[in-house]
Structure formats: structure tokens, C-alpha cells
């Protein structure tokens, strides 16, 4: 008899909770939009600012310079934003030594992913010895677009990474955005390889310019697609907490 009056109350609670969740999500999406906009702006700035400041700078001509500036800019902005937002999983122990191991582990992961990308790119047909520095720079760029964001959002946790890239693995909208941006930058790089064999002899067909541009464009597209897609599907997206 006592349980009867509680039932509507209970469902009411659920309704509130759902509503809270939705509003939470809206706030989070807004945060994501601004974060992604800042990252995209950093890429645009990395292209414009050196063109103004440096004398003979062009994206095609001095491609490596652009590549380094872009990589550095995106990396710095990413790290800064995600530190400020505090997206990464809370550390169990907040000691200095723990932080140091985490950072060093992240660096190790990053280096490893650069080498892995380099290997994959070579296996896909990039020249092995000549223009190895260009290939490696491209690998670093790809790692910045994918691995670095994984590190920022998930921390150096391989299992969590594997989890994120499965259909039901996303646990927050940041995970979903990670899925989208990673996939879009990798697909962009893959598509960027298509013009390489053509005999048009354009300046952007030189290895690895079309691939880096493809990856960058894919990344930027992913940055814009992610919040839109999440907003569109916000009703369907339910995340289970850990």
C-alpha cells in the first residue's frame, strides 16, 4: 500500500532526469561547438598568419613549414582547450608523480602512433627512403588530428581507445565527436592520395601535399560535422556512465 503513491513520483524523477540530461547535453554541445570553432580557427590562422609575417611563405611552396605550424598550432590549442574544459577522465590519484607518469606515457603513445602512421603510410605506397621527412611530418600531422585528441579526451588508455571505436562504445558526446573527427581525418587523408597518380602536374600533387590537405580538410569537416550530427541525433544518443 505504501508503494502506490510513490510510483508517479518515481516516473516524475525520471522525467526530470531525462530533461536534465538533455539540457546537460545542450550545454555540452555548445561547449563543443566553441571548442571546435577555436580549433578550426587555429588551423586557419596557421595558414594566414605566416603568410602575412613570413616573406616567401605559401602552403604549396614551403609546405613543410606550413605543416609544422599547423601541427604545432592544433596540438597546442587542443591540449589547452581540453585541459581547460577538463574532459579527460578524472585521475584516481592526483599526485605529481602520477601526473608525470601520465604525461610521459602520453608522449610515448604519441611517438608510437607517429611511427605507426609512418609505417602504414609507407605500406600504402609512400616512398620508403626519399622524402622520408615529408612522410614522417605527414604522420605527425595525422597523429595530431587523431591520437592527440584521443590522449586529451581519453588519456593514455589503450582499452578505452579500442572501446571508443566500436558502435556502442561512446560514453559521452566527446567520445562521439572523437569518432567523427578521427574517421573524417583518416578518410580525408585516404582520399587525398587519389590525385597523386594523375598527370595534371599541379603543385599540390606533390607528395604529401594532397594527402596533408585532405587530412586537414577532413579534420575541419569533422569538427563541424560532429556537433551538428550530435545535435541532430541527441534524442537517440544515450550514453551509459562507466
Amino acid at each position, binding site marked *: 500500500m505504501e508503494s502506490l503513491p510513490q510510483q508517479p513520483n518515481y516516473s516524475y524523477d525520471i522525467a526530470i532526469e531525462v530533461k536534465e540530461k538533455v539540457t546537460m547535453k545542450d550545454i555540452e554541445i555548445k561547449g563543443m561547438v566553441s571548442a571546435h570553432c577555436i580549433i578550426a580557427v587555429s588551423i586557419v590562422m596557421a595558414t594566414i598568419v605566416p603568410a602575412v609575417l613570413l616573406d616567401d611563405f605559401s602552403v604549396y611552396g614551403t609546405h613543410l613549414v606550413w605543416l609544422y605550424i599547423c601541427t604545432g598550432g592544433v596540438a597546442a590549442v587542443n591540449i589547452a582547450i581540453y585541459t581547460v574544459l577538463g574532459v579527460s577522465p578524472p585521475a584516481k590519484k592526483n599526485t605529481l608523480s602520477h601526473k608525470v607518469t601520465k604525461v610521459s606515457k602520453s608522449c610515448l603513445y604519441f611517438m608510437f602512433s607517429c611511427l605507426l602512421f609512418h609505417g602504414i603510410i609507407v605500406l600504402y605506397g609512400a616512398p620508403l627512403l626519399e622524402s622520408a621527412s615529408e612522410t614522417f611530418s605527414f604522420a605527425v600531422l595525422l597523429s595530431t588530428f587523431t591520437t592527440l585528441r584521443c590522449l586529451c579526451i581519453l588519456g593514455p588508455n589503450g582499452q578505452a581507445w*579500442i572501446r571508443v571505436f*566500436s*558502435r556502442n562504445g561512446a560514453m559521452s558526446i566527446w567520445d562521439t565527436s572523437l569518432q567523427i573527427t578521427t574517421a573524417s581525418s583518416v578518410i580525408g587523408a585516404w582520399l587525398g592520395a587519389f590525385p597523386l*597518380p594523375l*598527370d595534371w602536374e599541379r603543385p599540390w600533387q606533390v607528395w604529401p601535399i594532397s594527402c596533408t590537405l585532405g587530412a586537414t580538410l577532413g579534420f575541419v569537416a569533422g569538427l563541424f560535422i560532429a556537433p551538428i550530427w550530435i545535435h541532430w541525433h541527441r534524442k537517440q544518443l544515450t550514453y551509459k556512465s562507466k
Partner: protein
Amino acid sequence: MKRVPVLALVLWICLLFYVGIWIFLSGFLLVKVEVNRSSSCKDELFSKHDSSHTEHFCWSEPRFKRAVILIIDALQFDFARFDPEIKDPRHFQNKLGVLSEVVASRPAHARLYPFRADPPTTTMQRIKGFTTGSLPTFVDVCSNFGTNAIQEDNLIHQLGQNGKRVVFMGDDTWENLFPNQFHRSLPFPSFIVKDLHTVDNGILQHLYSTVESSDWDVVIAHFLGVDHCGHRYGPDHQAMADKLTQMDQVIRSVIERLQNDTLLVVLGDHGMTDTGDHGGDSQKETDAALFLYSPSALFTAGQEKALQEVVPQIDLVPTLAQLLGIPIPYSNIGKVMVELFALGSPEDQSAQERRQAEALWINANQVNSYLDTYSLANKDLSPVILAHLKDTFLLAAAEYKALFGVPLAGGPEHSSRVQALIATFQQYLNQVRETCQASWARFHPLRMVAGIAVLAAACALCFITSDFADVVGASYRRLLWIPVVCGAVAGGGVALWQFVTRSEVDVLSSLGMAALVSQLSFFWNFCRRKATRVFAHNPSDLLNAAADAAQHRPALTWPSVPLVIFFLRCASLFSDSYVVAEGRVATFLLSSLAIYIPVQLNWAGRLLLLFEAQKSTPTCLPPQPSTPAASSSYKKESLTLLGCTGFLVASLYASHSFHGCRDEQGGCEPSAFLTPLSGLRDIQLRNFRYLLSVSSIIAWVCLVRRWMRHYGNMNSKSPAVLVARFGLPLVAMFVCLYWAMSSAPYEGFGNLQEVVKLALLVFPRAVYVLFGLGVAVVCWDPLMVFLKTRKEPATSLLPPTYRASTGVSLQAELQHLIPHIYQRMRKSLRAGEREGAGREDDGQPTVEAYGLGTVYSAPLLLVLALLGLVLAMLHPEGLMLSFMLLLLQACAILHMHSAATSLSTPGSRAGCFSVSWFAVLMWGLAATQFFYSTGHLPTFPSIQWNSAFVGLSEVHAGHLAPALLVTLNTFSSQILFAVSCPLLLLWPLVCESTKAGKRGRRAGEGEDREEAVMEMRLRENPDRFSTALLQLGARYLFIHGAQLLASVCAAAILRRHLMVWKIFAPKLIFEASGFAVTSVCVLLGLALVMRVDSAVSDWFKRLIPDHSR
């Protein structure tokens, strides 16, 4: 199991494709047989009986001693015309003023003609055209594909024969076409289309000094600037104006330097379209300019016409030959330009006409003898027309003899008869040209469209068959026999109608009709079948449908990404750059597909690599694995998948090191493995390479034998096992010996040369014989199963139900019995795998069959191993490494396929043998990739001709055997992958054994369901087995057929492309022959599997009476 309908259906699909290819090619490829005879001055004009005439084939007094021939590539007729009316000329107009100036000022010395080329209007074909006087076609069936040099009689050859010194400068195509035939040659590279000036400036450096000197009789200068300018900027561009002005200057300067005995010919080899391209048959492409000039009078004054008639390009050949006093090239079908022979004073008309008639007479004679020779060699010219032409010629010849045979002449009657004779000759020559043109030099758009339609419909049919194999498999009568009969009736009807109305049968149209009607009938029946299927409630169909529904489509079957990748693959055939880079494109797509599979599985949550720590999130786990044993087997499977993916991608990278190089690929070095060992100077390196090849051949043999031993196929004494045990190593040994002999330097052996020669014949022949024997033995008795009978009384094991049915017919008995035997078999099978007869199961098996689990794949693998060795022998020794890589890579793909299948469809796979698209696509891409990695390229010069005489003496080999060997060599990758195609179906079942064995051991021995049944599953579902085979064959054919269709469409759409005869058409030929070889081999592979199946049935039939007694 339905064997005949499955094979018949696949064969029918293949035939549809063949008909489509044939119809298309007959409209696209212009085929002509080359006649390798050359004319000489001593050829007699009259038959030998007429000894009264001693006229010769050449004129004793040539009109000109010397000639300067300026070829301006792509000089369209509009470029050469000068029209003062035009107020505001475009960039290409009114720039060559010199031509019309000279024509106006000296009408008896110069004339400008429109000069019509025959398609294909590409430079190389055109050079062939106006030097041989023939219509060069794409496939000039000649003695040797390997060289580009012109084999037919031609002007350059005749000039050289008659002691003329030919100086050539310009486009280096000439140097390839006429190697070592010039007195002096200054070739410049023609390939760099962007470069407007190198060739022209190179010519100009030498042209004037050469013309002024006296060390020449004929100067040929081929300018490329105008053509390159058109390709780069199009005709309406300032650069074209500059170029044409430069050419104007050149012609002026040359005219100034000419002497009286010299003829100047300025010609364009073809025109260009408004975009600057050429190659096709539009008027802008075919109409070039021809300008003739000489300081001495060329034409009779006062005969110039206002509008010049169009001169066909090949007419230049007899004209030049007669003007220079050399024999007309043997294969010429052009007609002399008579107005050039009407020389002398206008009053003496009879002398003029006599000259003209004589020129035409010589010309007609040569054409007639050419037609005689050609019609002997090839029958593609209609005999009716040929007979008519012959009659015309004989009449004209009689008239000529009557008029000029006797010395007296004169009178108006005589003159009119001569004029009539001239007209007859001209008419004759025109008719000959038209006949030949219709046969050799015209695309047939209707045939091309019809061919494409048949091919597209065949592709659709193939796709339907593969995707609805259960529907098709359930109703062969409606979907196979009725369409075939309809098609046969329609084709026969068309043929009969043609025979009745025109009394000759056009095979092509009746075949095309048959194909189209049978396809339509198939689609019609299929649609009706699908529509009625829902209502009919046919029990067997319903069963299939239910099974399909229960088996919710596995994660990888529906091709989203594989479809995209396949689409990209087909689209890549439409770009010349991609066709050039095809080897790399195939590798790129294949590794993309390989990497996509684990990513996709991970996305679907099926890749259980690191999940065991995360058991708390059950949503990520597939519902199936509950026991730790199953989970660990999943983990193992995932690791296998990842390992195989890594290995596959790495081996794809390694396979690049065997690629050859096309001409179009700049900065490419052909693989060092492609040079045969005998070509290596360094002895150390040679020995090392030989050892490498030998060790990989040993690894090849050992791997195959080890696999068979592992699955218990090496135990019995059946002949097939003997082949595996002794035949395979023996073949490998002979191959090694052959390589050793062929790579040894000849001089090293001294007296033993005869022995070496003999060995070079004996060893390959031994390999062929052993291979033939091995295959025959495997076909005769393909079972590699070792049977061990126990002493225990068999009857006691049979359940009472069997006893009750003893009175029933043998058929019913068998149906009851076979499952029971299986139960025994299943139990004993695992013991057989372990080869431990001592370790028994709990039950008391009566029969132990070793190697029954791989009863289908073992013979297939054996045949493949033998075939691979034979194919490797036909290649340079170094490529054995590539073959080894092929084997490993195929293994990796098979393992990936089976791991992915078992990961994506958890639970029992009993009864579902469908092979997913991605596996078939990977198989097809791997076939393409290894075509390149065995050092082949889709170009004719790159065919490995050395393989034609492996084991054959070059003297009396005939044509068939060398052609077969070259085909085997060229398409070895397609052959291996197509024959091994059924392995895709068998492998997941073979791989089942390891994991099921483990699972079973932990779950307890009692469960029959968990036992490894392996390929016996196929025996249990004979209908599904045949359906699965049909589906697999249809899918594999679809992959290749769609590529063929893409290639055909590319050739048809881009038939005016600059590179059509260099890239697309050869690619099409290779793709088509590759498809033919593939389809035949798919059929052979399927037939072999079915042969095994029938042998297995017989075996069971024999077995059961033994034990029921």
C-alpha cells in the same frame, strides 16, 4: 547435389560474356592481316605467257630525283587555307600565307589539297598509313608483337632498296618504326607533350644545311610543335599563331633552297578538334593539308580547278613512289593522283593520257596482286565483292593491252577509249579502297553498343545469380533451361531468316540476338518467380527463406565499403593515369580493404582483443560467448585476423618489388628479379639468386605437404596421395634442374652443349608430363582419405530403426544410413586429425577416416601446387619468390576471411556457406595485383615471349603450343586465383577444426554438435553446397565481369582519346583475355570440386554395404 545445372549455369554466364566481348571487339578493333611481301622493280606486269611485253614495274625515268617531305603534325586543313576575306582572323587562321601565295603565283608548280586521313588519327598509325599505303589497324596481325617496327612493305624500305639516301629528322616515332633504315637520322623525343620547341628547333638546326648539301635523296622532317601546341593550349591560342608563323617561315626558306629536280611535299598527318585533340574520325580530325610544289612544272597549266577534290591520305604513297621512280609498296591500296602525270604540252593530249593510263595501270596491277595475296591469307573481305573487283580489273587489263600493246595509236576514237580506260582504273581503285576501308578502318557504333548491352546484362544476370543463388538454385528449369532454349531459338531464327533472305548468315547478329533474348527471358522469369514466390508457399523455398531470416545477415555480407572500393576500382579504368598506375592502385585498394575489416569488426564490437578486462560492459560484447573457453577462442581468432591483416599489408608492399615498368612511367626501374639468371654477369649474385629461387620452391612444396599431413591427407596409399608424396617434389626438382641448365652460360660447358640443349628440352617436358599425370590421377581418384576399419561387429552399432527398414529399397537404406556413418565419422575424425589412433573416444567407432575433414580442399590444393610450379617454370627464375609470396598472401586472405566470418557470425554456421563480397573482392583484386607482381603489364611489348618455347624446340613447335604457353605465362595469376576460388568456400570450414576442437575438448566429449565436422558439413547439405558453389562462381565472375565492362566502356567512351591505342585498347584486350582465362579456370575449379563430391558419394556408397553386411 546438382552438379550439371550449376556448371551449366556458370558456363552459360561465361558464354554470354564471351558473346558480348566478341560483338564489342568486332565493332571496336579493326583487324587486318599483314602481308610481308615487298615489291621490286623486277615484278612483271603481265603474266608470263605474254612474253611480248617487257614493261617493268618501275619507270626508267623518274620525274624527280629528290624530294623534301615536311610533315607538320596535326596540320589541319583550316590552318593551311588562306582566306583574305576574313577581317579578324583567329589565332590559327591565315597564318600559313606562303601556301596560297605560291599556288596563286605559280599555278603549274604548286597545289594545295585537303588531305583526308583514315581513323585512328594518331601519329603512329598515320605514319604507318602514308608510308605503307595501307590502312593500319589496331591489331595488325603480324609475326611479332614484340617490336614496333613496320613489317609491311613501305616507302622508306623501297627508297632504301633502290639506293636512295633518306635523311630523317624529328619525331622519334619514326626511329622506332623504321629502325636502321635511314641514311642519316636525327630523332628527338616526342613523348613530352608540354614541350613545344625541342623537336622543331632540333630540326631547324639541321634542315637548311642538309637541304643545301648534296648528301641526300629524300629528306623527311617531322615537326611536332603544332600538335603539342594543340594538346596543350588548343588551336585558338597565341602560341598556335606563333607556331604556324614559324612553320610559314620554314616552308618559305625551304622553297628558296629547292633545285629543279626536287619535289617538296608539305603534309599534315591528321587534323585536330577544336580542343586540340585527335584520334577519332570527325572531319576536323581527319582533314589535314597536303601541299605539293616543285621548281619545275608539276601540273599542266590551265587545268587547276576552283575547288580541289579531297585526296585520301594513302594516295600519296603510289604517287610519291611513281614520281621518285621506285616500286609501289606491296600492300598499298591507294590510287595515284593522275593530274600529276599529265605532263607535256597541252596540245599533245594523247601523250598525257598515255602517261596517266600507264601510271594507273602500274598502280592497279600492284593493288590486284596485293588483293590476291591478301584474300589467300585472310577471309575477312567478302568473296563476292572480290570476284567483282577481279572482273573489273581483268576487263580493264585487256582493254589496256589492246590500246597500248600495239605501237600504232591515234585518232579521236582511241582517245575516248583511253579516257574511258582511265575512268575504269580510277573506279576500280576507288572501289578497292572503299571495300578495304569498310572492313579495316571504321568503328561500328551499333556493334559497340550491342556488345556493351550484352555485357551489362550479363553482369546484371551474374549479380542476380550471386545474390539470389537460393532462388536460382531452386528453379533451374525456369531460370536456366528456358532462357537457354529461348536464346537458341531466337538465334537460330535470326540465322535462318538471314539465310532465307540473303543466303548468307551473319554469325555475330544471330549470336547477339540469342544472348539478348536469353537474358531477357531470364530476367522475365526471375521477376515472375520473385513475385509468385511470396504467395506460392513452395515448401523448399519457404525453408530457405526461413533459414535466411533466422540467419540475420552477417555483419560483412552487405557490401557498403567493399562496394565503394569496387566502384573505385572500376572507375579507375576510365583514367589513363590510373591504368598506367594500375598495379599500385590495386595494391592500395586491397590494403584499404584489408585494414577496413578489423576496423569494421571492432566497430561492430566483434573484435574481442582487449575486452576481457571490461566484462562489466556487456553491451559491447556480442551476445554469444559466455564461457571463458569460447571467449579465448574469440581472442585467438581476433589475433589471427590482426596478424593476417598485418602480414597481408606487408606482403602487398613486398610485392611491389616484382613490378615491371611501362614506357609512360618516368623514373621507373623494372624489378631486378625480371632479368633471367643467364643475363647476370656476377657469378656470386647469380648463385645467390638461384639459391633463393630453389629455397622458395622447396618452401612451396613443404608448406603444401605440411598442410596435408596436418589434416591427415597423407596417410593412405591412394594414387592422389602418391602424387602429393612423390610427384610434387619431383616436379619441383625438375623445375630447379631446368633453371640451373637455362641459367648456366653456354660457353661454360664446352663439349656438353648438346647435352645442355637436350636437358633444356627434357626437363620442362618431364614437368609437363608429370603435371598432366598428376592432374589426371587426381581427377580419376581424388580422395585422399585413409580408412581404418575396426574389428568390432558393425551391426551391433546400428540402431534398431535401421533394422526395421531393411526391407526398403537400397536408396532409402542409404538415406538412413549415411547420417549414422557420419556420426561415427565425426567422432573418429578428431582422432584422425591428431593422428593418434591410440587415443580413442568414448564411443566405439567402427570406421576411422583420416583426412575426411579436408576431403574437398586437399585435391584442389594439390592441383594448385602442381599448377603453380608449372606456371613458375614459365617465368624468369627470380619470380619464384613472387609465387611464394602469392601462396602466403592467398593463405593470409583465406585466414582473414575465415576469421572474419566466424567472428561476424557467432554461433553455429551450419547450413550457411555464403561467401561474403569482401572476400571475393579481395580475391579478385589479388588476382589483378599479382598480374603486375609477376612482372606483367597490359602492353604488348611487355609480354614475356621467352616462355613460348619452354620445353619446345623452336623449329617445329607449331603455333598452338607456344600460344598456350604464353597465355599461361601472362595470366598465371588469374589462373591460380580462379582455380583456387572454391577454397574461399572451403577454408572457413577447414579452419573450424582448430577452434571447435578446443571448444569441444573443454565442453566435454559427448556433444556431437560441437564436433569438428569441417567439410563434411557440405556433404550434409548437398543442395546448399551446390547453391554456395554457384554463388561463389557467380560472385567471382561478377567481380571480373564488371571490371571488363568498365574497361569496355572506357574504350568506347574514350575512343577519341589521345591514348586510346596506347593504353586503353591494350588494357581492354588484356582484360578481355584475362576474363576468358579466369572464367575457364573458375569452371575448371568448380568442376574439380564436383568431381571430388561425386567421388565422395561413391565412396560412401561403397562403404555402407561393406558395413551393413
